[in-house]
């Protein structure tokens, strides 16, 4: 088997399971600085599939690509800790406010700058939007086949890859020529944990923005001069040659017209305790109403 060039698309997402009251701005956009962030769970599965291929074909190169604000560099470091060869960050304020269409355009411009590839892997969807759109949109723009909801890579031949898809009511095994793009389902194997040696090697990896921010210690700057692999590339609008009207808010057809807090029309609920008498009374009422029984 020949070595592959794999790009893993990964996103730093707000931890939607722990959301505070100031999570949204009045204009309906997400107030990201106010939220805890995590590596998007499906993207971790995608990283695992890529690293698993690398286990089998050691010359394989795995590049993690992420788009986001300064702190999204955590995604690149996490990728390094777990076994990625290379990481690139797309970061520029002008990319902000992008919907899935503008995001896929931006990612594809960066993928094209990275050069040849055999396989693009990404999570099926991100937990902050659940749209599952960016993968297929990238595949369209790259004019390559897509295999969505992959939970297992069955076989890799020279220029062909066979994968199993997890559908609503079953599974489907398909083959596709490479290059192709796969989105990875949450039922794929969990990602391996960090490798201690790799954490030691990459813990000082930083983007230039991070290095140039206030309070950076001198030793870190010196270290980056000696070990250039620690500097995470950070690409701007100009670096990837993106057209301004296709990125950020202006490249996004979908706009939030309004957000409404949901006012619950409170029902007349019966308030009960967990005492036997209360539970039995309720059961009897339900049986009388023929709701149960």
């Amino acid at each position, binding site marked *: 088997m020949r070595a592959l060039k794999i790009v893993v698309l990964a996103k730093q997402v*707000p931890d*939607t*399971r722990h*959301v505070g009251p100031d*999570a*949204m701005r009045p204009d*309906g956009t997400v107030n990201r600085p106010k939220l805890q962030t995590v590596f998007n769970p499906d993207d971790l599965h995608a990283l695992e599939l890529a690293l698993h291929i690398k286990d089998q074909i050691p010359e394989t190169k795995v590049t993690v690509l992420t788009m986001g604000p300064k702190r999204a560099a955590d995604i690149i470091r996490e990728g390094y800790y777990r076994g990625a060869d290379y990481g690139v960050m797309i970061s520029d304020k002008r990319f902000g406010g992008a*919907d*899935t*269409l503008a995001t896929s355009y931006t990612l594809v411009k960066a993928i094209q700058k990275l050069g040849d590839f055999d396989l693009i892997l990404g999570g099926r969807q991100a937990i902050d*939007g*659940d*749209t*599952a*759109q*960016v*993968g297929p*949109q990238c595949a*369209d723009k790259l004019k390559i*086949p*897509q295999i*969505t909801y992959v939970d297992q890579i069955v076989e890799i031949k020279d220029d062909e890859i*066979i994968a199993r898809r997890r*559908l*609503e*009511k*079953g*599974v*489907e*095994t*398909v083959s596709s*020529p490479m290059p192709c793009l796969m989105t990875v389902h949450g039922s794929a194997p969990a990602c391996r944990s960090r490798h201690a040696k790799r954490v030691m090697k990459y813990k000082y990896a930083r983007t230039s923005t991070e290095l140039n921010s206030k309070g950076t210690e001198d030793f870190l700057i010196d270290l980056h001069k000696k070990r250039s692999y620690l500097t995470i590339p950070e690409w701007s609008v100009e670096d990837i040659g993106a057209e301004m009207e296709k990125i950020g808010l202006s490249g996004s*057809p*979908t*706009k*939030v*017209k*309004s*957000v*409404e*807090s*949901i006012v*619950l029309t*409170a*029902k007349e*609920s*019966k*308030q*009960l*305790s*967990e005492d036997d008498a209360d*539970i*039995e009374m*309720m*059961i*009897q009422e*339900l049986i009388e109403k023929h*709701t*149960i*029984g």
Partner: protein
Amino acid sequence: MKNVFVYCEVENQKVAEISQELLSAGKKLATKLECKLEAMVFGKELNNIDKQIAPYGVDILYIADDDRLEPYRTLPHAALAEHLLKKEDPQIVLFGATSVGRDLAPRIASVLNCGLTADCTILDIGDHFDKKEKKEYTGLLYAMRPAFGGSIMANIINWDMHPQMATVREGVMKKEIFDANYKTEVRKVEVNDIVKEEDFVVKIIERHIEDSGVNLKEAPIIVAGGYGIGSRENFQHLVDLAELLGGEVGGSRAAVDAGFIDHDRQIGQTGTTVRPKLYIAAGISGAIQHRAGMQEASMIISINNDPEAPINKIADYVIHGDCGEVLPKMIKYYKKNAK
């Protein structure tokens, strides 16, 4: 006037439930806009398929009939949809938020360079005044979905990059026959003129599709558990109660993510939408994404330790207590009182 378009899923000569629901939703939008409803269906042996589709009030139906179009594969379906949508230039296009629709719709949105809103729970028509351009847009699609964190409903619009596209989960819209004798104009699509040989490069090697036996949509009673249940083992109480009452077990997304219950039993915006006679929510706080999938239940019982749980507001009975205590008592007193 530009029309409303629905992508219909079909397998074994049967139009999918979701597509029937979408046609009903599409008809309502078309009626409001005073335009036609059009539909496209791609599959094999579709001779009589128009009879299933016409009653939903479809004015024009495009049929692409070719053995290679079923089972669904992305590229040939995308080529056909792209061709038709570019040619017919509709204002609104609806897809099911199924494993097919969620694979196809974004690819189409990319090639048409238009907007796509996922997992809408309400579709409507309305206006928008853009302050920047000082321009009034009328007859826009309001694609509404619960968003971020669950406390809000977002209304997503798209005024400048058309068509306006949306996906909807199965069970969210109600399917309604418009007119059993509706006259539909059928237009055959010449597949070989549009789909190229290289669109078939992805090959299906093996396919196992089966009903998992889980039928939440049809269940009269659903006993659903949330993160508050605590473990997969504790879910057994729910299973016992559901079996006893002749219902099904469901779970919130948090319970599914925590591994307490399988994906195919998830209820809510990104799972199944249900309308049972009785819905028992055990240890479910009731974020809007969850409520979107169950709030039309005729009766709701909430069992929760947290008196502030949002689900309590829509419940008929609120039991303040621990599910581990309450569920066995419900089993006990049901056995005692049922005839």
